[in-house]
């Protein structure tokens, strides 16, 4: 390879441990997509504005275009491919986006779902999450198709499902 020096990394992605040698400058998003074949995480900009590449690193949402793969040595990463259960049962957010028509072209959707997963995890209130909380909570993720209306409904619906399960 003509990518310069490589560095060993061990990253657990969607529960599976991967030991790789990666170029030091390789972005996490490219590691996920090109090395591991997890192409559900998308690239939509080059300035960390759009959020299409959002995944969870040790449980917190992060834009994987702003993180080097080597920085994730020892970390647990979760991507959209890891959201449904092993037997294919959809995560409440996936179900919410489907039921509420929260996507059109679907390019921003994986990032939206991962950002929303973190948002709902951080939403400590006992009551339902408000429209305003969802809208501000997803400010870091851009969508050009939906006008956000149904994305907000999808996240609120997922929150309600999760709340019922917890109770």
């Amino acid at each position, binding site marked *: 390879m*003509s990518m310069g020096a490589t560095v060993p990394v061990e990253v657990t992605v969607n529960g599976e441990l991967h030991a790789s040698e990666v170029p030091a400058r390789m972005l996490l998003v490219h590691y996920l997509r090109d090395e591991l074949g997890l192409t559900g995480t998308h690239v939509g900009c080059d300035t960390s504005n759009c959020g299409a590449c959002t995944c969870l690193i040790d449980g917190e949402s992060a834009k994987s275009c702003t993180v080097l793969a080597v920085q994730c040595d020892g970390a647990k990463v979760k991507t959209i491919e890891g959201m449904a259960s092993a037997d294919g049962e959809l995560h409440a957010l996936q179900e919410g986006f489907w039921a509420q028509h929260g996507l059109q072209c679907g390019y921003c959707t994986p990032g939206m779902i991962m950002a929303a997963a973190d948002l709902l995890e951080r939403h400590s209130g006992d009551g339902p999450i408000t429209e305003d909380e969802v809208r501000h909570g997803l400010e*870091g993720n851009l969508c050009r*198709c939906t*006008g*956000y209306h149904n994305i907000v409904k999808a996240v609120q619906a997922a929150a309600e499902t999760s709340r019922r399960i917890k109770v």
Partner: protein
Amino acid sequence: MTTAVPSAKHVGQSLRRKEDPRLITGRATFVDDLALPGMLHAAVVRSVEAHANIVSIDTSAALARPGIKAVYTGNDMSDLLAPLPMAWAPPGVEIKTPERWPIARDRVCHQGDAVALVIGDDKYVVVDAAADVHVEYESLPVVIDVEEALKDEILVHESLGTNKAHEWSMGGGGDIEQALADSDVVVEQRIVNHRTAGAAMETRGCIAEYRAGQLTVWSSTQVPHLLRLFYAVQMGISEDKVRIIAPEVGGGFGSKLQICAEETMCAWASKQLGRPVKWIETRSENMAVSHHGRDQVDYVRMGATNDGKITAFHANIIQDLGAYFGLLTPMIPELGAFVMTGCYAIPVVQTDITGVFTNKFFTDAIRGAGRPEMTHMLEVTIDQLAQKLGMDPVEVRRKNFIKADQFPYETPYGITYDSGNYEVALDRALEMVDMDAFRAEQASLREQGVLRGIGFSTYTEICGLAPSRAVGPSGFGLGIGLYESALVRVHPTGSVTVFTGASPHGQGHETGFAQIVADRLGVDPSVVEVVHGDTATGPMGLGTYGSRSLAIGGVAVAHAAEKIAMKIREIVAWNLEADAADIEVQNDKFSLKGDPDQGMTLAEAAGCAYIDATKMPEGMEMGLEQTLIYDPSNFVFPFGTHVCVVDVDPETGSVKVVRWVAVDDCGPAVNPMLIDGQVHGGVTHGIGQAIYEQVVYDERGQLVTGTFVDYALPTAAEIPSFETDRTETKSPSNSLGVKGIGEAGTIAATPAVVNAVIDALRHEGISYIDMPLTPLRVWQALEAARGSGDGPRASEQGVELPDQGEGSAGSGPTQPEGGAA
């Protein structure tokens, strides 16, 4: 023969989308998700100058990098057979067309013009190498402002001798000057409709593979069949040896309705190197060289009687074309002119259009394409007229509406509106808004220092492109007809594959078209697979844009399924010894009227058609398959009323949309959920232009808004929830009665926002502000109106203002008209 149109079981339902399972689980395949054996990567070296001669290009350092296979420049690609196409010029008009090659040969005319193509085996390395390509330029003078360019002091293309590409005038109903002179009142306004970006979340991209005489291109495109046609011409390859595949496409909004320079270069390079070549556009490239939209300076005049009857409307449109023509560039303002009268019975109209080259990237079709600009002129000017007459803007609209019993209605331009009932949509919107409650709230908020305003936009638009005779080479001058194709194939087991020439990129065709077929063939939509975007699998089609897919492609699918249903009825009737006219689809079965147990499922009928010839009427062709090309008799004209409520902060000038009511009429709904989704997204696109988004070049032609840091797409936090409803007026243009809805929200939205802001600020003496209604602009308008400042003071806040000039560049101050008067 009786018609095979069934009662609707699936059509009309908000069925969950068939597309979604792969998209919500990360299993969809966009072009960048594909990799081929031996694939190389491409990066494009782009001009840093807006206008310059290329003195020399030194590629040696780039070529010396490990992993670099080739660096090509314009001279290397001199064997390309044709420049990139412009396919739609106004008919009968002299037009000056500069050649646009995929890569600059000796001169660059805008920042971002391609000057070299770097190809190597790693996507990081080609970017490194691109930075090592040294280009020496001899700078030429740059002209950015469109009205400055009209003076021809600086020429974008010396060889053309002028920056004026074309002039086109259309008038109808009488002499416009006389009609204006005869009017009791005339309002005039200069309106800048600024340049915007398509900004699909997936950028453009392709993989081109030339192998054994066959070219295959995977492209993020809205028009795969047009790409095949062009590549065959461009590279001298027989059309049957060219295959275009549009995999999952992440949004388009017109920006992928283009024959792209980069894809052409990759196809050419793949042929040179014998390996697949991938190019994925960066967002910075997307902002610079995916075509822009809008960018007009408009001078409008509207005449009326003292009691509010519009007598004349004139628009003088100066269209900033950018440096070249894209596929449809010169026709964009003309598309708007076709609905210049909007919803209104305006007796005398005239449109004068001047296309002008500047040293910017070219403009072309972006969601709405000419119609948002025209609707903006019309709807903003009507509010100005109402203000001048002291009338309610809603009543001025109502007074001038074409009445429901006047359809089909021929406009002064000879366009025939198919159907409409504008008052019903307006009344429904008013009911949802509750104007009395609003005015009370507005007054009480004003006392608390919040400036709330309401704005209306009652629109109609021309879409469902289109009748081939009307738009084609002998009609409006498009280089091809705009029919659409369908192939419906029932399999022996009774499941169905539908091939459509439409090429969706988020709209939900796989679901909506499956609903249409399911009703006609008596099956569940889950066993109807809709295949699109592969020129090797289905018949020639024209793709998805111009809100055409349902009204043309969906109708093609319906007609093909109906033809198959007719054949099935004959098969079933023959087996039951009944009359085909007595067979109908009931309970997912083709069965005898009055005796639903007697009949066959689609699978049973398919078994006859594919397996047992003895169960077919003698002489009937085996199989159940139908190819169909549908060409409509007219365009379709959706319409509606949009109402925007804004709050303006008098201290900061910031505008926030707090409420949006939309009542749209696109005929009978195939899937109401999909319609709502199109309206939400379309309106948000319009809110984006009205308040946040603007493509800005500085006076040297440098793009200031080159990333999402500078180009403000609205986020969830800026956008309200939407209150939507529909009325249903059938179109007589097609058998489904449907009209397009993809662009309607965008077409309706911007004037509703501007009218709302002016409603909030009118008591301050402000009657007009150009978009985008940024805090700076609104604040400056307020300052000027209040007379507390001596012109713009923003520099005191440390903001360096570009010279707004008279054109579209710059986000600086607008001189508010009507100021303190």
